[in-house]
């Protein structure tokens, strides 16, 4: 594999990394936030609209973030405030973001399909003076756009916040046992709101990184990346390092899919399906590996129950709708 391939993979993984970093906070707080997809899409739309309107990328990103925080507030307000099922509210958010972008696009540009803006400023690669001169590393780590750098900073910040700050301790406590946390005087509702807003913020940056490099808005431009980010969080064992590795893997899958579209005779339509099947495959491999490990760790004769326990722990983030609402 060439350096170029790794460099491209690092660029492609940005939206995955940002969405997964955001989703990590809501996941650690004990909420299944399946709205990552919609939150990203919302910002992907609004950041383009405002970049075109103002001619300024910074204002565009800012507007994308603001619009997405607003949507997160609606989502969180209904899920937490009205005690609605957070999973169903997440679906509603995805539906709303997709529909809103098309309705507004029709209102503003008179079009419901893709809209391209030839003169629009786009996110350009930045060369970092110090790093770019280092032989191998320079080629990999320099020459990305600002949001890619920001995604690394955010991941580092997430690590510090989650493991080194009282906020992170409280966040994880709330996720593990809301009742005990409440008894300890932690504001559980407040932590849930904070976690959702953080995930909204990070998803907004992720969405902006998709369309601001493209210079266009394409309906459903996120195309499942928010869902894959959920899988990345789960496969990454809900740790920042795991998320980084997961994002690299899925960034590489997308890179491969892009590469094969231009270099192979496999029809492009089929390659679009690849990331989804690769994700399922990764889920299966992870589960098989985990059950193997659990069996090996267990003392002789106690294999089955130990494997079961491991599987149960792995299942934890997936809360179905009927019992749903992990809050309370």
């Amino acid at each position: 594999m060439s350096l170029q391939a790794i460099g491209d993979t690092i660029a492609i993984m940005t939206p995955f990394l940002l969405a997964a970093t955001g989703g990590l906070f809501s996941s650690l707080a004990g909420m299944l936030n399946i709205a990552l997809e919609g939150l990203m899409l919302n910002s992907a739309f609004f950041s383009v609209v405002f970049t075109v309107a103002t001619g300024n990328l910074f204002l565009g990103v800012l507007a994308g973030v603001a619009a997405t925080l607003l949507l997160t507030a609606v989502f969180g307000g209904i899920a937490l405030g009205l005690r609605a099922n957070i999973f169903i509210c997440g679906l509603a958010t995805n539906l709303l973001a997709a529909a809103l972008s098309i309705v507004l696009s029709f209102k503003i540009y008179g079009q419901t399909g893709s809209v391209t803006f030839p003169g629009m400023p786009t996110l350009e690669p930045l060369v970092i003076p110090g790093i770019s001169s280092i032989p191998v590393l320079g080629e990999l780590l320099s020459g990305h756009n600002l949001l890619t750098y920001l995604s690394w900073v955010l991941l580092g910040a997430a690590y510090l916040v989650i493991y080194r700050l009282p906020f992170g301790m409280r966040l994880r406590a709330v996720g593990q046992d809301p009742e005990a946390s409440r008894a300890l005087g932690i504001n559980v509702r407040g932590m849930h709101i904070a976690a959702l807003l953080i995930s909204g913020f990070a998803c907004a940056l992720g969405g902006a990184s998709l369309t601001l490099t493209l210079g266009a808005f394409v309906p459903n431009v996120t195309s499942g990346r928010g869902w894959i980010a959920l899988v990345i969080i789960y496969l990454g064992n809900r740790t920042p390092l795991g998320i980084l590795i997961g994002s690299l893997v899925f960034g590489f899958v997308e890179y491969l899919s892009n590469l094969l579209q231009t270099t192979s005779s496999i029809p492009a339509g089929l390659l679009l399906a690849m990331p989804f099947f690769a994700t399922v495959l990764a889920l299966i491999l992870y589960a098989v590996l985990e059950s193997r490990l659990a069996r090996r760790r267990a003392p002789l004769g106690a294999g089955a129950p130990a494997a079961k326990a491991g599987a149960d722990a792995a299942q934890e983030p997936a809360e179905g709708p009927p019992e749903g609402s992990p809050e309370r």
Partner: protein
Amino acid sequence: MNRNRQLGLASFLTVLAAILASFAIAVALIFVFSKNPGQTLYYYFLGPFLSRYALFNMLESSVPLMFTGLGIALAFNSGVTNLGGEGQIFSGALVAVVVGIAVPAAPRALGVLAILAGGTLAGGLLAGFSGVLRRRWNVSELLTTYLLSSGVVYVINYLILGPLRNPQKMTIESVSIPAWFMLARLAPPSFLHSGLLLALAAAGAVYFLVYRTHLGYELRASGSNRQFARYGGINVGQYFVLPLLLSGGLTGLGGAVQVVGRYQSCFTDLTAGLGWNGIAVALIARNNPLAVVPAALLYAYLSAGAKAAMINSDVTFELAAIIQAVIFYLITAEAAMAFFRRRLNG
């Protein structure tokens, strides 16, 4: 009023409140987005009732919603999640086409039966596979149903654009099944077809299965409390696979009925969000298979209104999706439930 009655009534009032709130938001949005709100409102709310043709077409569009709603309600009743409706409908429709063109000389009844069975099997296997993954390796079916469905949608789109494309048509669609396999039209010139009767029968059958059989009892027991069901001696493992198999089968059947009742072929936007709308229909019906019928009708009305408004006025169809999102948001609100229960207690 006994407790169960009261719970049911509070639940019904919550659904009603969510629907009324969504209507209010629809009116507000139309005032924002339409230059001629009076006309848009007229078509949005009355469009589906303005002619026999419109009314019967609305009934027709409720048919696939009944199948997907039933599929999702069955899954929810059993405590599993099926987010792959889109892919299951689509694969049901595609396999229906493939079976239809494979047995062109079959007797009509047999051919139709084979087509419907093929669609059911396709959707069922797709969802059932997620059930196997959940049972065998505890991989969340919530994620795999969605992911597999999304992948399959791309594959089927490829097949329609490529190998199965009908070269004689201007529009992009698959080859057509023989016309004599098509279900009877109930009220021509509208599209309403006898698939409606099949959907009603399916609602009755699913209700019977869930509430009147031992299997249904075990499904619901596993759905409401899996641990407890296990202690009660129920083999809960199989109740990951079976409900998903049945759920996907119903959605797949819905896809096949779209082909054999309405379209005669498969095309790229055939699903049109039906998989997601099925979830909303199931939630409005509070997962009761019989209530799925009126819930599907309500949902069909919302979509038909948006279509009428789109054709006769200046709004896009996606307006309906925003309004549907509002229902989604509010339908499970427990705060509303609690409010109505307090009120009923006086």
